[in-house]
């Protein structure tokens, strides 16, 4: 790949943005360049990254999902309730995780039926199911905050891979989740690039009709996508509950925008057909870096949301401009061919 092409890639731009931003913040406050701060950014990124991987798959396939945070908290909260009601082994970490993932897959299946089965637009479906899931959870499963989550989950929140006291006396901790999350990220990357399913996701994003003509079942691919996203969201939800050390059914609602923002900043095309896991990882890190450190730059926390909005608008504008240019280039190329 030549250098010009490499420079034009979204990932490269994002890496530069991250470096420039780090230098700016770092020059203002040396606290930024500490291991503790890096690990903090990582810790706040785990859950979002899992959500983002799911959203990435949906966006590549040309759809959009706004129900995933609700699926996540529904799964996490319900798993905790089931653990308590059935008095399952509270020491276990595996049981709640498996429960949450299964619930997530079931809820994703609900989306899959509406989208793949009936062909309803993805935004409308997931807006509707988000309302259904949230309403059902809060009126039938529970609406109260659970602070005594099972011991296994509670303990997990403080399981650190690396833990030591820095010279400055602050506690530096790297959560053990960094390993499983990295493995899942790599698996999703392999799934998208090395399997027939992954390639059909990209094909679907390119267009449903051509995909059908290639002999790929559009419905089956869509069904798999939304169930997979449900499972990933369920996992993210239970990990969120664990890291927070409480199960609050009102949490996560409204966080879909930050995740979609991260995926889009990471270069995934909302029209479908393009997007990389690497870009998404960078997007999530970038957003979290900004959200965690705007205060260090002297931006008050009430302007954080506006800052994310500005970033998102800039990101999509850059994407749109380069897309328009590409189209024009192709058009002029085909015009000159005709001439």
């Amino acid at each position, binding site marked *: 790949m030549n250098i010009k092409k490499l420079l034009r890639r979204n990932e490269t731009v994002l890496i530069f943005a991250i470096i420039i931003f780090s230098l700016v913040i770092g020059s203002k406050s040396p606290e930024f360049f500490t291991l503790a701060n890096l690990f903090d950014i990582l810790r706040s990124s785990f859950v979002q990254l899992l959500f983002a991987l799911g959203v990435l798959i949906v966006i590549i396939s040309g759809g*959009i999902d706004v129900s995933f945070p609700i699926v996540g908290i529904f799964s996490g909260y319900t798993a905790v309730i089931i653990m308590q009601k059935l008095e399952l082994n509270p020491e276990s970490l595996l049981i709640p995780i498996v429960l949450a993932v299964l619930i997530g897959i079931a809820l994703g299946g609900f989306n899959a039926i*509406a989208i793949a089965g*009936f*062909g*309803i*637009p993805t*935004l*409308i*479906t997931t*807006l*509707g*199911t*988000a*309302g*259904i*899931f*949230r*309403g*059902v*959870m*809060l*009126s039938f499963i529970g*609406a109260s905050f659970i602070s005594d989550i099972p011991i296994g989950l509670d303990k997990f929140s403080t399981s650190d891979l690396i833990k030591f006291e820095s010279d400055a006396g602050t506690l530096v901790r790297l959560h053990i989740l960094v390993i499983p999350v990295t493995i899942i990220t790599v698996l999703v990357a392999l799934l998208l690039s090395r399997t027939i399913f992954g390639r059909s996701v990209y094909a679907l994003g390119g267009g449903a009709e051509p995909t059908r003509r290639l002999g790929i079942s559009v419905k089956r691919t869509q069904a798999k996508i939304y169930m997979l996203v449900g499972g990933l969201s369920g996992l993210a939800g239970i990990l969120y509950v664990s890291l927070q050390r409480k199960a609050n059914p009102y949490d996560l609602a*409204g966080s879909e*925008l930050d995740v*979609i*923002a991260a995926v*889009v900043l990471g270069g995934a095309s*909302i*029209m479908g057909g393009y997007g990389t896991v690497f870009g998404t990882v960078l997007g999530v890190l970038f957003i979290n870096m900004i959200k965690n450190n705007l205060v260090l730059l002297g931006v*008050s926390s*009430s*302007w*954080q*949301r*506006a*800052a*994310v*909005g*500005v970033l*998102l*608008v800039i990101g*999509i*504008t850059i*994407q*749109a*401009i380069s*897309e*328009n240019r590409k189209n024009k280039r192709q058009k002029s190329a085909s015009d000159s061919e005709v001439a």
Partner: protein
Amino acid sequence: MSERANKFSTTGLLADRKVTQLMAFTAFTFLVFSYFSSDIFFTPENFLSMAYQVPEIAILSIAVMLSMLTGGIDLSIVGISNASALIASYIMTQKMSEEGAISNSWILIACLLGILMGLLCGAINSILIAILNVTPILATLATMTLFNGIAIGITNGVSVSGLPEQFMRIGNGTLFGVPSPFVLMLVIAGFVGYLINRTGLGLKVFLIGTNRKAAQYSVMGDRKVIAWTYVISGLLSALAGLIIASRTSAASPDFGNSYILLAIVIVVLGGVNPMGGFGTVTGVVLATIVLQMVSSGFNALRFSQFFYLAAQGGVLVLVMILNTVLEKRRINKSINKSLGS
């Protein structure tokens, strides 16, 4: 000429059928709740309170409808309405004396600036969507965060309350015995109805929604038309925001977040095609009334607000499923018919 007349009569028929269905549905909902809750639901007080609550959401839904007619969507409506309401409320509270007195001209200026804010936000959407070619979902998702963020930033996340009495009269008073917000809604609905059914711009809106590419090739200035729909959508959102502020005497950056889902449910229930090209103002207003009755009815029967949320989502998905199934059957029928003949 005859072809054009023909086309209009068929869309007219289709519109009539959807509206008739909705009227039947409205009557049905009305009867069900009146039967189950005659003591609370079936009272003049309840209908009066519904007449005050319907306008704001109806106006927001009409704004969503406009963007949907062109095949797009506007998710930033609530962000715009809150930002506009906050600007107007902020100016009013700043210009108010200790005793709460304020001149009418300042109220007018505050409202105009609020409306200007709505137009400005709409224009930002227009630039992103019509000029830069960003997908409407993504553009308005981003601007929704932006407008909401600006509102939070300006007010530090707290709400502005204690608005002047003259201003509150708009949202709580009556005009010829009818709640004034309801009158305002009828005026706005009439205006938008006129705009989409009787003007060139409206015709182009439908044509673009039916087939964007065909519209592009017929050089009707599709970008300009789309830009206008988002500016008008911003204007309507601002008006809804001002009505909300004047009814509740407060403006807050996180007011009415649930209105986005509700507005889309209403628009789809009102028979607007989310792919663009079809929809009526009457349908949207009727659908708003149906959902308001469901909300009040649930309240009267003491269902939780979250049950209402689930019902909204359920209605949205079910109506969409019903529409696609019926559409498929209709197409199959017409194919069979043409094969038979």
